[in-house]
């Protein structure tokens, strides 16, 4: 069993948990993910490693409450245990030879972008971070990003915090002002990553996007996480989760991501009703 050692609410829909999982903590690297189940009948969901502590054997996850499983997960507290916690899975972020990188995160994707920014910063890479949220209530990890970035731009859809606009607006400004990046690393909603990649293609800046498709096992067995990269089918779990953003078929990835949406909504509602009944 994998004990929850710490639980922090980062905003009304995003939660951070530190999980005791020594085998995973020993091996985890930025860019990799884990698969968890909350209970014996639960589904398997992948979540990216947000941080790890090899000495204390803990792995940090940050998740947004979007479906039945994340809702159930959020109802667990410090001292409770997760039924299953497996990993680390996927390939780590490649950092070789990088000198200057723009990390572009959106929404809860920032939870995955942050450890990448931190790792790069620790390696002496110059990091510019561009992060976007819908509004000021949803901002997470602002101080953390500031600490590891020589430039930090905060964007919001409604202008309630930082600058009003999209991360692509900010990134365009930076590139047009003469910033030369070895690589852009983008993590967030598919639609955001699609437009980030379109932008960087225009300026010919190599770009990596971190994909988080539906999967079951995470070891290459089911093929549910497949996506098209440069005309070839790849499995996000073993070939990724990071891919060359200029080659990803984002439209296909978005269609696949919506495959079970009605089911997920229904399942989420059912779980919420269940918790409501318990409270009454």
């Amino acid at each position, binding site marked *: 069993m994998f004990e929850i050692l710490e639980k922090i609410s980062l905003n009304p829909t995003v939660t951070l948990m530190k999980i005791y999982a020594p085998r*995973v903590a020993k091996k985890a690297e930025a860019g990799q993910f884990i698969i968890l189940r909350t209970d014996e009948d639960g589904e*398997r969901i992948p979540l990216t490693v947000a941080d790890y502590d090899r000495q204390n054997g803990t792995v940090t996850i940050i998740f947004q409450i979007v479906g039945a499983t994340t809702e159930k997960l959020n109802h667990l507290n410090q001292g409770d245990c997760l*039924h299953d916690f*497996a990993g680390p899975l996927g390939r780590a972020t490649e950092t070789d030879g990088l000198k200057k990188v723009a990390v572009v995160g959106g929404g809860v994707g920032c939870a995955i972008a942050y450890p990448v920014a931190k790792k790069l910063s620790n390696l002496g890479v110059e990091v510019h971070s561009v992060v976007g949220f819908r509004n000021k209530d949803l901002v997470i990890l602002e101080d953390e990003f500031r600490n590891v970035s020589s430039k930090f731009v905060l964007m919001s859809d409604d202008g309630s915090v930082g600058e009003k606009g999209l991360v692509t607006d900010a990134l365009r400004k930076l590139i047009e002002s003469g910033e030369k990046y070895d690589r852009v690393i983008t993590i967030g909603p598919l639609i955001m990553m699609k437009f980030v990649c379109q932008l960087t293609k225009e300026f010919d800046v190599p770009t990596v996007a971190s994909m988080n498709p539906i999967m*079951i096992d995470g070891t*290459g*067995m089911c*093929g549910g996480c497949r996506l098209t990269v440069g005309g070839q089918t790849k499995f996000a779990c073993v070939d990724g989760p990071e891919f060359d953003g200029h080659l990803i078929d984002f439209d296909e990835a978005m269609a696949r991501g*919506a495959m079970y949406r009605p089911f997920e909504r229904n399942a989420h509602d059912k779980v919420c009703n269940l918790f409501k009944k318990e409270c009454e």
Partner: protein
Amino acid sequence: MPNMSLEKNKMPVQEPDVRNKNFSEVALGYTEQQALDEAQRCLNCKNKPCVSGCPVQIDIPAFIAETAKGNFEQAYKIISESSSLPAVCGRVCPQENQCECKCIRGKKGEPVGIGRLERFVADRHNALCDTPPEKPVSNGHKCAVIGSGPSGLACAGDLAKKGYDVTVFEALHTAGGVLSYGIPEFRLPKNIVQREIENLKSLGVKIETNTIVGKSVSIDELMNDEGFEAVFIGSGAGLPRFMNIKGENLNGVYSANEFLTRINLMKAYKPDSDTPVKAGTKAVIVGGGNVAMDSARCARRLGAETYIVYRRTEKELPARAEEIEHAKEEGIVFQFLTNPVEIKSDEKGWVKSIVCQKMQLSEPDASGRAKPVPIPDAFVEIDCDCVIMSIGTSPNPLIKNTTDGLDTQKWGGIIADEDGLTSKTAVYAGGDAVTGAATVILAMGAGKKSAQAIDEYIKNK
């Protein structure tokens, strides 16, 4: 005097129209009376041709003789000497190509129902005997087994019986490998698999689930840091193949692995499951093996009108005769000499139809089967909203990619000698990870062989 009936005792089954709506076991098993009657059909041949057909050489006439006398527990003991998973093999072995095809009674009439008797004996033992096996005295040596499928379980069981301290590492959250995620409940109830695993635990075997060897820990770390003196790799052949045709990534297209894993491991067939699965209203399964039959029969049970498209003819179907028969009875339609070339999409990115080319058979190919060749300009389009690709699997490269000095074939299989020894000292491998996708019994046999070899290696170290 033996029972000279030309026919086997029929296996009682759920009626097709009932069972194609539920996931309970199809075959119900012999009654005691049927088992006694069937056992008396065995001629107890001196040269035991059936044994030569068994990959693990169970003393078949001996266990059947005990069964005929009503000494069922003795019969179980005889099977157990050679097989680690009798209740499993009695259900899923392709007996018609193994023991039963060598049976003298099969020369005139049907062979003895060896598989059915094996199942009866194992089930009876499991139902009546609830004392778990005793934990053997420890010999102080540690062995690791990677993967908890048939080869891993067999290897772990035999090593534990010899006194080894065995830990089985399983990547998924439930042990059993293909027995848990692949073979459906209606063919192999999961409580039977769990029972076998509980028995192993009683023997002292530790099972560490959620541990992906190659990711969570490497083989070298297991040996150098965690004190395992030998390792057996039974990681199976779990990587699904696709056809690389247009439309294969559309919504509604599954690998058989994904479809079956959702249903069997994640219990998506239960209405309250957190894991979804969509067999649609009309499902097309591509392939002709046992996995294709399992996928089709699951889709049927989920309410889909179900088709199997296969590029050769019925004669070449690699699936077991019984599975094909059951599938037909359950209303699954076979389209032979038909090979998909494209999957078409509706405006929302969902499967709408599958376009197939008609084929004809020509000369035998490398596999010895007649080679299917396309008939020019002959296409059919089948409307469907679910496609399940069941065209085979290959070994997972995860361990190969993370283990220095482990040699593999070009197609990914681990290279191992007769005893399962790999190119790496003290590392053995067996089952589908070595041979490519094969049968439960062959994997089990390989696991047992390696257990023997590991024992000799450690004793002589």
